[in-house]
């Protein structure tokens, strides 16, 4: 297996499971991409060889345990923060699981990510520290850097439960070029039954796309794109207003390019159904893409998309990362996206002076 395409194909179309020759490689890729639980849920109920079924059953059980643990961590954070009376918005995997979304099925969930309004940050920090969370790092530089420029508090870990929490006040670093409208995002939150919140459906997509294309180095990208596929399908089904709403929100947050790229790549890799007339697309293209032929061409991958696609699929049948140069390129880019050049130079200088291990 030279890249992750067989995994993508099977996620897209589980009926192909009967033709799989090399389950071992497929499972190794799925585990390396944190998609083993999602795959296992996707293949549930199919006639498969007994050893494969046993392995997938264990992956589903593991996914379920992870879901319970993630929701419990959210609940403990809710209890710790309840006296403050500030809305707590769940992000990423925990949000999908708490909202019962398809994207949460079997999904591996790492840290607890929450979003609060920036003015509430000091109170939230104090309340978490009082309830048993502790700083992970002692480094003053990183601390100062985090507080000044990042979109989240430095990571905290709970001393009894060993779980990390990331407290965000924005979805991108403050130094990044797009400036999402956080007030609007927080105002449009959706209440869950237990007193917690999620983002609105369009903002959930915007956040997932921003996280994937405008922030990190694309590690775990296939999983994040799978989230986007599941979310788009679920939100758009039976809601004709969804695509225009997504377009509007992506534009308002300055994230049309990222959302457009997410939609194109999800469509190409996971066959996400898209309403191309109303799908998010960069403004510069909207004016010229008005004829039916040009609208029809909107789904085509741009040249840069191909590079992203290669990066997303760069995993061999042993679970090894492939294409080190493209990876390095995206790593450098992730820093470039996060900060203006001068600040980047300073940041890299300080990092370089740290002892390397």
């Amino acid at each position: 297996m030279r890249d992750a395409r067989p995994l993508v194909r099977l996620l897209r179309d589980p009926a192909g499971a009967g033709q799989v020759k090399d389950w071992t490689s497929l499972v190794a890729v799925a585990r390396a991409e944190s998609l083993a639980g999602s795959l296992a849920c996707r293949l549930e109920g199919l006639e498969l060889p007994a050893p494969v079924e046993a392995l997938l059953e264990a992956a589903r059980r593991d996914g379920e345990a992870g879901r319970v643990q993630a929701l419990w961590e959210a609940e403990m954070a809710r209890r710790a923060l309840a006296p403050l009376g500030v809305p707590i918005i769940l992000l990423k995997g925990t949000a999908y699981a708490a909202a019962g979304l398809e994207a949460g099925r079997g999904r591996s969930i790492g840290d607890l990510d929450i979003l609060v309004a920036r003015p509430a940050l000091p109170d939230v920090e104090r309340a978490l520290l009082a309830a048993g969370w502790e700083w992970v790092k002692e480094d003053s530089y990183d601390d100062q850097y985090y507080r000044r420029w990042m979109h989240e508090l430095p990571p905290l870990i709970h001393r009894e439960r060993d779980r990390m929490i990331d407290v965000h006040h924005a979805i991108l670093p403050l130094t990044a070029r797009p400036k999402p409208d956080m007030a609007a995002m927080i105002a449009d939150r959706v209440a869950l039954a237990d007193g917690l919140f999620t983002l609105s459906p369009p903002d959930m997509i915007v956040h997932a796309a921003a996280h994937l294309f405008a922030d990190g180095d694309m590690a775990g990208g296939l999983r994040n794109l799978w989230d986007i596929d599941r979310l788009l399908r679920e939100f758009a089904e039976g809601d004709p207003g969804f695509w225009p709403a997504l377009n509007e929100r992506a534009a308002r947050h300055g994230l049309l390019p990222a959302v457009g790229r997410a939609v194109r790549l999800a469509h190409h890799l996971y066959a996400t159904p898209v309403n191309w007339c109303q799908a998010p697309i960069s403004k510069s293209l909207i004016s010229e893409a008005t004829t039916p032929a040009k609208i029809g061409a909107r789904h085509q991958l741009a040249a840069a998309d191909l590079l992203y696609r290669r990066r997303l699929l760069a995993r061999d049948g042993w679970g090894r990362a492939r294409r080190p140069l493209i990876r390095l390129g995206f790593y450098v880019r992730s820093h470039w996206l996060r900060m203006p050049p001068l600040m980047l130079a300073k940041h890299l200088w300080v990092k370089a002076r740290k002892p390397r291990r």
Partner: protein
Amino acid sequence: MNHVFRLQVGPVSFRIGSQWRRPVAQLRRLYEGYPEPEGVCDFTVRLEAERVWRRWLRPSVAIRGDYVLPDAAPLPLAQGLLAAEMGMNLQMALGQKRFLLLHAASVERDGRALLMTGHSGAGKSTLGALLGERGWRFMGDEFALLDLADGRLHPFPRAVSLKNESLGLFDGVDPARLGPVLTGTPKGRIRHLRPNGEAVARMGEPATPVLILFPRFGRDLEPTVREVGAAEAFMRLTQASTNYVALGESGFDALTRFVGALPCRAIDYADTAQAQALIDELWAKA
């Protein structure tokens, strides 16, 4: 990967890939007569150079695979076999979710299994291996796999890693069953021993657990037996399990059923003859 070995041990299968020939050749010899897995392998282990040039220059083996720990340190290529063994252990410790995994040795007689668990150095591994040469069926010296549905114990008869002084206890075994002597490892001098033909031939047969022992070895200890209550046994077994918490309610069910039904004893011993006498005595009553 350049060199590949696939291995079935009880109900678990591994695919081991290596950038170097030697570790795979050694595995092949050590596990001669083991079945090849049919179809999917549960876990993938990779032995690879930490940095590209370390494949040739002072080669050191990084232990990677489906599941990895960040603090894992590489081993010199001469200890590649040990790296492969550690890699398989690591996959079990981090990734095994089909069974309740207990860090324990187990042996069987008449379809009934004896389980021995304790901290490393307590002697469970040596005792398990010794009993396996003396009329019991050896089921495993490192991990015992408790079936979540029916409470039976599955064999996991991997090669036994004999350390330092316990090496001398196995002088009489067929030399073809012994791996290379590995010196200067993090655990001292090590030599692997392939379980005997019966253990390998019957690796697919589970057994009903009937007795749990917590052995403790010490040169100055008097041979004693102490009854261990279900509460203490439960606590100890959760700490001897890598996946108890991850298995959730099915783990709770399996383990409460286990400690509720089985006698548990702690035994102290100063030499293996004492231990065997105590075990025979307790087994007769079990």
